[in-house]
């Protein structure tokens, strides 16, 4: 039996969401696509390099502010602002990461958190540039008038058009990320995750690779942040707050950090759960906490890890390794 190219199927189906004609569905799909990219960028650290970052929202926020400032304050076009957001995320990650990779384990995590809180504080206080506590509302949409020229898209609302743009850009970014984790560089990262001491003694400069991974993760987080700011019709200090870092961490673990697509599934699951449950109860954090506890004990490989394991077992395969299988599609 030939393998079904699930990735393509999912993207193809996602592409047709605007044709459902529901503003709400398009809204959720945009949200999921952006957060999926954000979570996948974190997993380069968490699942592939074995680095736990508690401050990944910093680079998301930096990306969001960079593109918002360029597009709103400076009036520059989106096609300049989007790459610039990735670049800014990557550069800040390079600078902060330089210090972070000097520490290990919990100290590393705490330092990433500290830098993220600094970013948040700057966004919160630097009124002239970031709008301070009020943030920057009314970030303009990219000009998407050209889409009207494409047959079939002429009747679409701007939200639908932005969704199609977002989906395309996220698909490109994710494809790049996928390529990176399958590269020799990506393989070295898994060695560091598995055993940094041994990695060092086959000639790997562990810190340098960790820093490279940290910067690359920052680039993709910045790209996601840029899209999120536009989608959200404004950027706010909350984007860089520690709760945002926790949220993306939860998505990644929920979906399963041992699998490339795990964090994307986690992003979708958490977003949809959030919407569903908040419609019925105000105790969303309570429900979320319960789900997490259940998950950590019952499904340590996350949603995807557990599913993959189960599928393998049903097919009669003998080997299940708890989803610690970050290298395979």
């Amino acid at each position: 039996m030939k393998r079904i190219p699930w990735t393509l199927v999912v993207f193809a189906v996602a592409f047709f969401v605007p044709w459902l004609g529901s503003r709400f569905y398009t809204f959720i799909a945009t949200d999921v696509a952006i957060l999926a990219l954000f979570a996948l960028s974190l997993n380069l650290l968490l699942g592939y390099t074995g680095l736990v970052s508690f401050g990944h929202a910093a680079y998301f926020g930096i990306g969001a502010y960079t593109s918002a400032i360029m597009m709103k304050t400076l009036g520059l076009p989106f096609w300049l602002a989007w790459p610039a957001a990735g670049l800014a995320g990557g550069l800040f990650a390079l600078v902060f990461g330089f210090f972070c990779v000097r520490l290990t384990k919990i100290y590393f995590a705490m330092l990433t958190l500290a830098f993220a809180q600094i970013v948040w504080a700057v966004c919160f206080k630097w009124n002239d540039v970031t709008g301070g506590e009020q943030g920057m509302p009314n970030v303009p949409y990219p000009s998407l008038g050209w889409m009207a020229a494409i047959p079939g898209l002429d009747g679409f609302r701007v939200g639908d058009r932005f969704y199609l743009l977002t989906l395309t850009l996220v698909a490109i970014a994710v494809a790049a990320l996928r390529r990176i984790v399958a590269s020799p560089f990506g393989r070295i990262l898994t060695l560091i995750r598995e055993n940094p001491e041994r990695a060092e003694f086959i000639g790997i400069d562990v810190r340098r690779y960790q820093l490279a991974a940290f910067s690359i993760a920052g680039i993709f987080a910045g790209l996601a942040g840029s899209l999120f700011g536009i989608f959200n019709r404004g950027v706010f200090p909350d984007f860089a707050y520690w709760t945002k870092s926790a949220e993306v961490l939860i998505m990644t673990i929920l979906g399963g950090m041992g699998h490339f697509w795990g964090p994307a599934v986690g992003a979708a699951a958490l977003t949809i759960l959030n919407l569903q449950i908040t419609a019925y109860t105000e105790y969303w954090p309570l429900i979320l906490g319960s789900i997490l506890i259940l998950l950590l004990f019952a499904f340590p490989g996350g949603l995807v890890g557990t599913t993959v394991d189960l599928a393998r077992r049903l097919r009669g395969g003998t080997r299940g390794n708890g989803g610690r299988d970050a290298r395979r599609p």
Partner: protein
Amino acid sequence: MLDVRDLKKSFAGFLAVADVTFSLLPRSVTAIIGPNGAGKSTLFNLITGHIPPSGGQVFHKGTDITAAAPHRICRRGIGRSFQHTNIFPGLTVFECIQAAFIAHHGRGRNIWGRAERLYRAETDALLGRLGLADKADAVAGALSHGNQKQIELGIALASDPDILLLDEPTAGMSAVETRETIGLLRSITEERGLTLLFTEHDMEVVFGIAERIGVLHQGRLIALGTPDQIRADPEVRRIYLGGH
């Protein structure tokens, strides 16, 4: 090849390695023996840069490599294995060895190529040499202790070292596995012209393959010589071999 001069390490006042001096000639096979806690592993960690010495120097081919970063020392051609098996447990056996080749050839900077296509032939050849060909697709961490030791040897050999430091290469192995491993070590050392420095508990192994033996006792190198000299050394007999 490797010169160790007055190497010293103290941990909070306790002298783990005290003024150890020795040299390794190219293509020589040297064993370091000594009771538990004699400082064997510490000595290895000092040579390979895992812990900084409190004093003394290490030279490799005349260059001072004292306290250099482990990855730099490895890149100079010094390979090592660890006493406690130290592999990449979540990868397959094939991937462990392949990744070691990728690292050794400095291909890790490539973020756009395909890792799985690299060094397949080299990896297969080395796995065959180690007798691990049939286990190539097994997850390394799930294999027996003896197999993991072999994988570790493979990881060290993939970086094509000229000096190999093995910390208890047969620890925890069955008698059969020990014999196989020693046979393998001997032939690979000869084929590749390696300089070998190893620690070992098993005296049969030590006296079987070592050309020179150093005896470490309470951090001091109390004797260094041929197996016959060591066997005849009264002090070694008294404190270590116990009239063996």
